[in-house]
């Protein structure tokens, strides 16, 4: 759906050449990596923790399984998965951005998480893993940054085991107009200012707000998942649709 005839794509509201988007997104996350966790808590007022808990509830993950936390950033989900799958399981934290990976790795090591987690720098569009490899793949607040989302979804489908599931946690379209209005105001007026205040980086948070608006809504994303082969696809609106969790199975 991002494929334009002239090879351009969205970077927030700006239209840029496709191979430049990767670089631009990289810049954004390089510059926010260090303060990423604090910003997450401040900007979502801590609610992102609840969204992530819900994601884990829907994951069905068990002892001994193989999990890929894609666009895993600072590894919130990885930490939980690592403890659930235990010593016989395996979690891969993959991210395109090595600054985020480094912050993630340091954070998890400090928490004492070691042994069953590995760190891989990878682009979601071309995952460097064998076919049918993972029981579970999650991508939380990552898909909207990916240039070619269809390609990423297809690549995810390939490395997922039959019987495995994909969970996409992502900003979405609020289901009530008042919520949408408030939310718009928040993302375009307050969010960049907070970003400037805390991380001294209003541009990155301006991009965040814009990228959220350009992201496909609930039903479009569901369609996109079905198109690459996912079955039993469904989504759950969280916080009135500000965020949605999509779940699909590979059979």
């Amino acid at each position: 759906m991002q494929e334009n005839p002239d090879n351009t794509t969205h970077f927030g509201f700006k239209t840029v050449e496709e191979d430049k988007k990767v670089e631009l997104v990289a810049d954004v996350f390089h510059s926010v990596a260090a303060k990423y966790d604090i910003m997450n808590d401040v900007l979502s007022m801590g609610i992102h923790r609840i969204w992530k808990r819900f994601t884990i509830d829907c994951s069905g993950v068990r002892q001994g399984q193989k999990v890929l936390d894609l666009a895993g950033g600072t590894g919130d989900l990885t930490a939980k998965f690592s403890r659930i799958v235990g010593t016989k399981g395996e979690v891969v934290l993959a991210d395109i951005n090595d600054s985020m990976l480094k912050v993630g790795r340091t954070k998890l090591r400090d928490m004492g998480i070691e042994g069953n987690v590995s760190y891989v720098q990878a682009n979601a569009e071309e995952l460097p893993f064998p076919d049918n490899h993972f029981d579970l793949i999650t991508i939380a607040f990552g898909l909207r940054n990916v240039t070619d989302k269809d390609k990423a979804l297809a690549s995810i489908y390939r490395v997922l085991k039959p019987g495995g599931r994909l969970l996409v946690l992502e900003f979405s379209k609020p289901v009530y107009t008042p919520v949408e209005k408030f939310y718009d105001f928040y993302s375009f007026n307050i969010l960049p200012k907070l970003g400037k205040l805390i991380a001294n980086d209003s541009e990155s948070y301006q991009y965040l707000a814009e990228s959220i608006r350009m992201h496909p809504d609930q039903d479009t994303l569901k369609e996109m998942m079905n198109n690459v082969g996912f079955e039993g696809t469904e989504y759950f609106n969280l916080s009135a649709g500000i965020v949605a969790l999509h779940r699909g199975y590979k059979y």
Partner: protein
Amino acid sequence: MPLTNLLCGLLETGVNQLHQLDSSAVSKRKQLNGTIIAASLKELKLPLYFIISEQQVDVLNKFEGEPDCTIKVSFQALNKLQDNRQLTQLIKSGELEVDGDIQLVQQFAMLLTDMQIDWEEHLSQKVGDVIAHKFFQHAKKAVQTTQTQYKRIEKQSSLYLTEEVKVAPSALEVAYFSDQVSRLESDTEQLLNKINNKLEKQLNDLSQSKVLADKK
């Protein structure tokens, strides 16, 4: 759904925060490392899954794997779980249902309830020895005062109930009442005896007059 997520989150944070202060928590978690325990209150029907690792305790409200041990316990029995001797008792009385290793249940109960926290020590790290010590002196005093106050209130409220509103009888009244009851009891007994005697006498008279009549 997100409400139970919130609940689990709060519970998890609470337990782990306390564990950070508890000097015995790390070794207890090490013993249980990798154990998953499903626990639910009989009253609530909301299962919680406790995933215990060396690093912390995670609390989930959904889990599709196989827990190592499943516990169902009634609310009142919660604080009895710690006690080794009471466990079998609780199981017999049906207040506790265990599917799995009973020893795990006990270790788990200890992990959550038997925390060794030196509050004074922790506070002194934050504010210095002197203040911490003072604070705890005051706190102890406050506890004592509350206890005496509580006793006073208890006494006063019983006075109020007995004298002012007369909902409950005073001790004297109770004594008087029970005196009356026993008096009534003995009176009744005497009366019964008298009736008995009378009846027997009449029966005797009757049979004697019958004998006399026969002789005639």
